[in-house]
């Protein structure tokens, strides 16, 4: 009896290919090494500052990656993304603050609250993005981000305004908890919080990667590349855009919850407003739009710079005493930030990872051409 075997589709073939080479791809090893560094970090390097930088890199990598999902993969330029981050942070802070005593269930409650509010807001925003032209939407999102910042700044009753909200974490995350040492490092609240954030960030990041590699993600890429074509193929592009918007925004808000947990203090300037948004945007641009992993590099670059630039600045001021203009110039590190921003946009529009992938792809193409066309 003849059995009818179906020809595998091109997508299935590619999946097979990828599965086969999964453990030999160099990128995977880089990722594992990175993960190992993050896990071992606080145990090897006892400096609080280093742990602080690593945590911030992890959290902002997630925020930037979630932004990359919306900007790089779906092609929507929204400047309101930081709002979701802030909502997450404030959810965590206010839940604990208003109940007086920190308790276990506050964390999941804060997360649920963050997800809920962000989800609703993201849907509303996505609805608007359909209704108006892209450029209007960008400007609107800019105004919205500023508005929420001002809200956070002025609505004292709810958010304590510009003074911010200070709170402590429950149980083993609390700064007061400690229990001897573990593998050479002090086993305290900070360490536990660090590992919790590590696990959560990795999960969120993997979630983003899976989302992008899923069938939904492929549709998103087609929407970004040629929306008319996607619609003609029968995809309700609007639904997919809303989905990616909501997913990205929710992930960002969860990252905000983690951020609040780490700092134990939340105020408008640290989690809301355009300067933070610009930071995130720069991370995505430096890393490379549409690469997700680029966000990790971008976040690392920016956070490391922010941590050590003030020191560099002090150094510069020591080196140039007495020259007031030089002093003033050294103080203004944001100035160099702005110059860096512009230089990256002009010369590295694809970002670090993006340019790297381009270079690798071109080399592969050249090699393939050489193999297939000898003598040419």
């Amino acid at each position, binding site marked *: 009896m003849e059995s009818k075997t179906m020809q595998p589709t091109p997508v299935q073939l590619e999946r097979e290919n990828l599965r086969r080479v999964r453990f030999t791809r160099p990128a995977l090893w880089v990722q594992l090494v990175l993960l190992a560094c993050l896990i071992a970090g606080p145990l090897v390097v006892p400096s609080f500052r280093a742990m602080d930088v690593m945590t911030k890199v992890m959290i902002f990598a997630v925020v930037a990656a979630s932004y990359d999902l919306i900007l790089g993969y779906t092609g929507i*330029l929204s400047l309101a993304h930081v709002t979701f981050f802030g909502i997450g942070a404030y959810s965590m802070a206010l839940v604990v603050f208003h109940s007086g005593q920190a308790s276990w269930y506050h964390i999941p409650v804060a997360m649920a609250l963050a997800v809920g509010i962000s989800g609703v807001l993201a849907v509303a925003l996505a609805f*608007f993005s359909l*209704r*108006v*032209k*892209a*450029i*209007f939407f*960008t*400007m*609107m999102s*800019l*105004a*919205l981000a*500023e*508005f929420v910042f*001002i*809200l956070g700044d*002025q*609505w004292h009753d709810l958010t304590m305004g510009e003074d911010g909200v200070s709170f402590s974490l429950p149980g083993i995350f609390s700064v007061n908890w400690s229990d001897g040492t573990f593998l050479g490092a002090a086993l305290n609240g900070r360490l536990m919080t660090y590992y919790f954030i590590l696990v959560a960030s990795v999960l969120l990041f993997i979630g983003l990667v899976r989302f992008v590699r899923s069938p939904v993600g492929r549709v998103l890429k087609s929407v970004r590349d040629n929306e008319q074509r996607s619609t003609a193929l029968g995809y309700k592009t609007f639904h997919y855009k809303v989905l990616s918007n909501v997913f990205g925004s929710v992930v960002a808000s969860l990252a905000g919850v983690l951020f609040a947990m780490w700092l134990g203090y939340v105020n408008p300037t640290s989690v809301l407003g*355009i300067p933070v948004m*610009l930071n995130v*945007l720069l991370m995505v*641009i430096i890393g490379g739009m549409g690469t997700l992993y680029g966000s990790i590099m971008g976040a690392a670059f920016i956070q490391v710079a922010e941590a050590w630039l003030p020191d560099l600045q002090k150094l510069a001021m020591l080196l140039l005493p007495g020259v007031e*203009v030089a002093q*003033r*110039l050294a103080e*203004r590190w*944001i*100035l160099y*930030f*702005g*110059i860096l*921003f*512009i230089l990256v*946009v*002009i010369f590295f*529009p694809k970002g670090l990872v993006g340019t790297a992938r381009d270079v690798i792809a071109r080399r592969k193409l050249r090699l393939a051409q050489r193999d297939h066309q000898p003598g040419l």
Partner: protein
Amino acid sequence: MTTQTATAGLQEQGGTDFKKMAVWIASVGIWFLPLLWIDPTTYAVLTVAGLAMGMLIFLTASGLTLIFGLMDVLNLAHGAFFVWGAYVGFSLLNGLQQVGWVEGASAAQSIGSVLLCLLAALVVGGLMGIVLEKMLVRLTYGSHLKQILITMGASLILVEVLKVVWSPNDEVVIVPAAFQGSWEVMDVIVTKFRVVAIVVGLAVLAGIQLVMMRTKLGIIVRAGVENKEVVETLGYNIRRVFTGVFCAGAALAAVGGTMWSIFKEQIHPAMGEENLIFALIVVIIGGMGSVTGSFLGAIMVGLAFNYVAYTLPPLALGANIMIMAVILLIRPTGLMGKE
């Protein structure tokens, strides 16, 4: 849905479009609503304040909308021109103070001081505009994302340099004597400089309309907003027109800044960004590329802000965002934007 072709313009020639009329009537009538809960005298004061504020926002918004309409460029560095204009005016007033043209000055000297400030702002803003356009903005034609990124970066740089040249702190601005204080008109206290702001705003509007409607340059710009290619094939170097419009827009924003500095009697480095948000809202409401639209939008925003700020201060900016959202829902291209 009716097909919107260019002949939609025909409807303006007396065609009955009830929906449009209704929207217009509502938009005008709504401004008398606050009379329900605010007493007439306060309402009058707020209205004057609102109109003045609107005029000053219009100065920034007019440049922004022209730059977008003609060049399809989203210039987020516009706020930097605004704040530079303000600081230049501030320094100039301090200088004029030394020669007695500010405090205790006569009416002529006061007017002279203000005019000099406007002129200085115009020149500084214009120069900054030309430099920025030739160096950076040119690189971004065609990509809104690049424009946003580069102009934001430029804005950061310009504001930081401002902090180096002056200082990162707030400064107090001295108002020329003749414009200090207020008049009392039928129980209503009318701040003098607010009237000046309204006058300047109207003058600028009149000036822009004059240039746009009656000069060849205006024809070229309006034509370019509609179709750059045709204008180029008619023998005009559209790039130079771009630089010129960008320069003019920057100059206007700087003038707005210096006016605002006297209006508020204080300046701080972040005022450019704050003003930019308002200007953006106004441009969206009014329609990209329409100067009259920006004018109307600016008045709406100014009035709304003042009425709401009086009743519920923290929601003042929110009220404007609501207006913007509502208008975008009804007419996504803004009040007078092209379809």
